């Protein structure tokens, strides 16, 4: 890869170090153990194409700051998008009110931290490229899908790009900044045959520049993938219903690790003992074939960041080591209360949100089995190909929704099937993983994870997996 510099940080806040220092002092004026300020300036651009025309473009600017005070287990939070001193002070006082001590504290003096790493080595930052160039990328995707097959009836393409400039200062003297690019190109294709209609979806992106669409994944490839899925579904049958062996395709099936493992190893759910994992650290919770990481440091990946949203430098974190629970995803509050070290997983959607422990890029480490061999080992079962998403509860019950897949009969993929829901309890399913493939892939780089109303970009990955039995929801 060619060399590149980090996106230069531009200061949009016009708040001097002195002023920020004073605001932190106000935030701690009623005691409080810790306080921080999250300043954000974000420019977002969107291009939509449908019915053969560029229908609309949009530009959005988000500017504001959030002030947090932590006192014991309590968090006070105020935010404002009016950066006048009066409004900022008001937000600081709101946050301060959570503490009730007589004695005020002073924040340590701020020292600017310089980062020595850059996980977004982009060459052509999208926000600096011309709109014309992005429009031509959209048109190229659109017509590639539209012209892929005469059965393709409708296509929608959307290009979204943003750059988020953040500065975080805290009462321990930290001052650190980051500029995070994020790009996403998605294509929806609808195929029609004899009155039957089916939709296919694909996309690409990450913390990348526009060079991604010539070097990594082209507009044509994205279009083809969406169109092929729609055509595949035209021929697909309703899935079977009941318990059966399930083979998960590599890449897309990463949603399994996200739902079944990742969420329940977020530290807050364990600190509160609502997660099924809270009493299982060091214990065997999964098949010994399973090793799972969350790694925010993968260059260019959608879930990566140079610093988390509390200013912590992130670490690749092992969650499950050969079937044993080995780690959790921490933010500052949970790490403090659990007396654990920080892993750099405190994330927030924007300046109006309190940070929470979140996933970044979560994946199952590759195993030893040849993927072909895994499919061959199944006499009658279900092959889950592409996914719409999933959901989990703290109790470990989770589902994921398969948009397209195949029946497996005598070790071969046979009839294409559509729209199936798989359901299980995570610990049962994790123990039932019988084979792990050698073909680790990441799923569509367009995923967003939602928790307590906050959305953050994530990615997930896994190799081909075989689950001995799982409930497949289909038609009887």
């Amino acid at each position, binding site marked *: 890869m060619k060399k590149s510099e980090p996106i230069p940080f531009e200061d949009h806040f016009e708040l001097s170090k002195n002023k920020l220092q004073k605001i932190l002092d106000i935030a701690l004026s009623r005691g409080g153990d810790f306080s921080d300020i999250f300043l954000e300036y974000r420019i977002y651009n969107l291009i939509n194409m449908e019915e053969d025309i560029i229908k609309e473009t949009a530009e959005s600017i988000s500017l504001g700051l959030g002030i947090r005070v932590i006192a014991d287990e309590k968090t006070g939070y105020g*935010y404002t998008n009016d950066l006048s001193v009066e409004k900022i002070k008001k937000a600081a006082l709101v946050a301060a009110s959570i503490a009730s001590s007589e004695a005020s504290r002073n924040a340590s003096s701020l020292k600017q931290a310089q980062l020595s790493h850059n996980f977004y080595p982009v060459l052509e930052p999208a926000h600096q490229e011309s709109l014309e160039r992005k429009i031509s990328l959209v048109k190229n995707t659109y017509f590639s899908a539209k012209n892929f097959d005469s059965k393709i009836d409708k296509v929608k393409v959307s290009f979204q790009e943003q750059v988020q400039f953040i500065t975080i200062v805290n009462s321990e003297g930290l001052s650190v900044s980051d500029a995070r690019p994020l790009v996403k190109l998605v294509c929806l294709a609808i195929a029609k045959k004899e009155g039957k209609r089916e939709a296919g979806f694909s996309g690409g992106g990450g913390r990348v520049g526009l060079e991604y669409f010539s070097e990594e994944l082209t507009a044509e490839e994205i279009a083809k993938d969406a169109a092929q899925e729609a055509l595949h579904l035209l021929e697909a049958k309703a899935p079977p219903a009941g318990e059966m062996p399930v083979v998960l395709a590599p890449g897309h099936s990463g949603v399994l690790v996200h739902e079944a493992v990742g969420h329940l190893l977020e530290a807050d759910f364990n600190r509160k003992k609502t997660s099924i994992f809270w009493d299982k650290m060091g214990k065997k919770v999964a098949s010994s074939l399973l090793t799972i990481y969350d790694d925010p440091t993968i260059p260019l990946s959608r879930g990566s960041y140079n610093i988390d949203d509390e200013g912590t430098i992130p670490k690749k974190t092992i969650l499950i080591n050969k079937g044993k629970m080995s780690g959790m995803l921490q933010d500052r509050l949970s790490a403090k209360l659990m007396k654990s070290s920080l892993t750099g997983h405190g994330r927030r959607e924007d300046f109006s949100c309190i940070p929470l422990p979140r996933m970044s890029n979560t994946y199952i480490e590759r195993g030893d089995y040849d993927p072909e061999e895994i499919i061959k080992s199944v006499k009658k079962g279900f092959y889950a190909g592409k996914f719409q998403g999933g959901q989990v509860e703290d109790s470990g019950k989770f589902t994921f929704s398969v948009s397209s897949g195949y029946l497996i009969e005598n070790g071969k993929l046979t009839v294409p099937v559509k729209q199936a829901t798989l359901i299980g309890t995570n610990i049962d399913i994790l123990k039932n993983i019988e084979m792990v493939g050698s073909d680790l892939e990441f799923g569509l780089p367009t995923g967003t994870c939602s928790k307590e109303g906050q959305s953050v970009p994530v990615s997930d990955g896994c190799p081909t997996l075989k689950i001995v039995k799982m409930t497949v*929801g289909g038609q009887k």
Partner: protein
Amino acid sequence: MRESEKQLELKELAEKLVTFAKTNGADEVEITVLDGYEFSVDVRLGEIENLVEADSRSLGLKVIKDKKTAYASSSDLALETLEHLVKNSIERAQLANYDEFSGLPSLFPSQIDISSLNLFDPQLAELSADRKIALAKETEKIGLSDKRITNSHGASFETREVKAVLANSNGFIQEYDQTYCGLSLGLQAGETDSRVEDGWFSAKRYFHQLESSEEVAKKAVERTARQLNPRKIKSQNVPIVFEPMMTSWLLGFLFACVSGTSIYQKTSFLVDKLGKRIGNDKVTVIDDGLIPGLLGTRPFDSEGVPSQKTLVVDKGILKNYLCNTYAARKLKLQSTGNADGAGVGPSNFYLIPGETPPEKIISSLDKGLILIRTIGHGLNPVTGDISRGAFGLWVEKGEIVYPVSEITISGNLGDILNKIEAVGNDLDFRVPVAGPTVLVQEMTVAGQ
């Protein structure tokens, strides 16, 4: 909205930007300004967990030049930033394609008396922070006092006030204030490896209409505890009873399929079905933006088109798609006042209740499943296919015999609408998309 000075400011700002856009070459322009205040408190195990309070403002704009459209929005309300965004948008609009259907709605004579819609509770602002915190604490305490409850996700109390100002170059300029308050509780029952969870909430525009801590907590406990010791069941086709929140979920999916946007984009299985039968005669669905005091009520939509009552499905016949101005022009229909941002949204979208009490619907079942929660995705508007993870209560000879979990339900919305056998009398507008208990003749349940 807290100071009268600010009101003037925002209306003036909106008008000023309309003029600025016109002077700089826009043919048409629409400006929306939102000014909000929020307070929220989360308590857990008797202590405050989070307390958030903030004012925030944002502005959205749409410009049309030569029938080409561009949008922009900002949370930075500095005039300099906004004027820059307007200019950028006019320039950017040139890069979109000519679209004969674009453009603002024509100006409607305003006949709606905003104050009669009961959107704003003046007393909410007087509610002290201490009282709000106490309400959340009280709710959780009642929930935890039940022996079956083993952990808490916490209780929350939230209030919001929002002023919306809308101005456009056709001469529309109006504003309205609204309030919202909500109380909720999430609970767990059972031991770590056999946990079940659920919760309950109440949300209203007026504080005095909000259900009490006691009511919310009792319901949360009952909903959680009834799932303890679930069983698995065999895969089979059985009658399904949708509880009101489940009917609401189903109606949300129906809304997506009758939205004018999905119709002209042909991403709905209800394309070309206007005037045709899509369900049996028990199915009458209405969208009504004018019912006083409800959460989905508003005087006009995001384009300034007055809200209205629209008959969507009449005894099984599809009568209207719900449209914003753009979708209406594409489909040669009239806007139904359902514009929501750049898309289409429901106001109060509901299934007309029947006369049967829900208990009677359940006691009439020889064998079946009461659907109480679903998780996951698995809705496909293009085909109407539904497939979701589900939790339920198993019914035999008219009695609930045990809870079930780790099942999925699947079916097709088109089929379901034709197989509705009974509609309950228990419609309550807890959420803007709402329905009573319904009995569906048959769906597939997958289990063991």
